[in-house]
């Protein structure tokens, strides 16, 4: 029974004299290889040229600071919950008096670690974060000799105060708008919205 029209009829016909000579077929093959001399080469000569990176490339993470230089992360653990690879661990701590310039809210992450060997760079942590604290950037994770060195702590993840990392490309309009919706609970503490709610 024939189910589709895609099957091909196989023949076992005897080779003709021309085919047995092989020479025409060999010449044809040589012409095919020769035609490739004139084709465009897809090679990118790496150190001089680099492949164009996507504007929303998902690479090494960054823990953002706010406009005053305080860490945004409150160690809520939503990123760790969202992470499908279970690459994120954290320990929270309470902010002491006098540390207001370091941490934005009363609770902060004392330890924040991402295992870069586990991470699949899916970006779900970034999506889960209610504080706009974690972002994936277009930086690439370095190679290391030891497995332990791939567990990135806050020393590597938190952006330096004097060298802020631009993540505006990954802050899509849809996400920023979504996070401004006042009715959603997690947006209630978002700084811009807090004023709105009070005024309501």
């Amino acid at each position: 029974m024939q189910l589709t029209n895609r099957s091909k009829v196989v023949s076992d016909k005897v080779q003709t004299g021309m085919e047995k000579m092989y020479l025409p077929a060999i010449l044809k093959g040589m012409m095919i290889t020769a035609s490739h001399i004139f084709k465009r080469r897809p090679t990118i000569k790496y150190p001089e040229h680099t492949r164009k990176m996507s504007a929303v490339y998902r690479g090494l993470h960054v823990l953002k600071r706010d406009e005053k230089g305080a860490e945004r992360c409150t160690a809520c653990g939503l990123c760790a919950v969202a992470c499908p690879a279970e690459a994120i661990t954290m320990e929270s701590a309470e902010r002491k008096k006098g540390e207001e310039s370091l941490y934005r809210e009363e609770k902060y992450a004392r330890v924040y670690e991402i295992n870069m060997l586990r991470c699949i760079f899916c970006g779900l942590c970034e999506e889960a974060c209610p504080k706009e604290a974690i972002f994936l950037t277009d930086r690439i994770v370095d190679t290391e000799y030891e497995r332990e060195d791939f567990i990135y702590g806050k020393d590597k993840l938190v952006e330096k105060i004097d060298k802020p990392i631009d993540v505006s490309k990954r802050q899509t309009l849809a996400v920023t708008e979504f996070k401004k919706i006042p009715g959603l609970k997690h947006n209630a503490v978002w700084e811009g919205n807090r004023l709105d709610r009070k005024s309501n």
Partner: protein
Amino acid sequence: MISFVIYKFVVCVIVFGLSLAVAAYSTWWERKLSALLQDRIGPNRAGPFGLLQPLADGGKMFFKEEIIPNVSNKFLFILGPSLFMLTALMTGSVIPWGKSFTTEAGNTYSFQITDISIGVLYLFGVVSIGVYGIMIGGWASNNKFALLGAIRASSQMISYEIAMGISVIALIVTSGGTLSLSEIVEQQDAGFANIVWQPLGFLIFFICALAETNRAPFDLPECESELVGGYHTEYSSMKLGLFLFAEYINMFISSAIMAAFYFGGYNFPWAHELYQTLGLHDGSVWISIIGFGAFFTKICIFISVFMWVRWTLPRFRYDQLMHLGWKILLPLSLLNLAITVVVEYFRGNIHL
């Protein structure tokens, strides 16, 4: 007399250096051409266009660890690649690289190391000694794969030498029974190149030359998928380098032989008209140099065709190789010889 000895010594050194240089740059061109045929770029880091790549490769070969297996026969193990290299270099001595020129003092110098009257025979003799290098090297390694590769190489070279020899006999019949290479080339100066009279002979010779130099599609002796590395499995460092290098020298020399036998050597169409317009008289050294340029161009084209074939065709199976050699090429070359002899008889060039 002294000037003659010095001249011959200089020619020897030049031919030796040329063989090595061409072999070295063949490795570069092989990689570059294979890249071109496969939409890649090829070596481009060492020097402009990767032109220093052969130097880097050679340096790498010298600095690699040299391993001689404990169970091998050390003398033969070293003799193998040496012999292969030696025979590869020896073949260059009878090839006429250019027209001979005459100095103002009246001395004639030829662009050839030695013009022996049995040049073709010498060539075949030396080429068949070449198989000893592979055989000794493969056997002395005391490795099954190396031995298999060596056996393949020797049986393949012996099989294809017969068809090659017979196709050359047909060539010799057309060129009036001379075995001197310079005379064969000189005869093509007046008339057409031998390819016109011997197209089938050239085809057989070309296929056999591919097999003789162990080039794809006949590179069964070093077939990686079956024999690890074939006859040079156990070799490392510069001894491996000598084997690989000698293969390229063989390729260079067989290209030179093909160009000399079938494509007129240092002659080229409208050569005399060109020399007249340039105002060069017979025996001028510039004629020799221009002729050498033409010869060298032909050799380069042949080397490129060798490589082009390699990067197009897959490897033969062993029984196919033997089938092609014994059942197709041998009868074809005999037929070619018979036809040649009959035609030459009726043209009156052969007297019974």
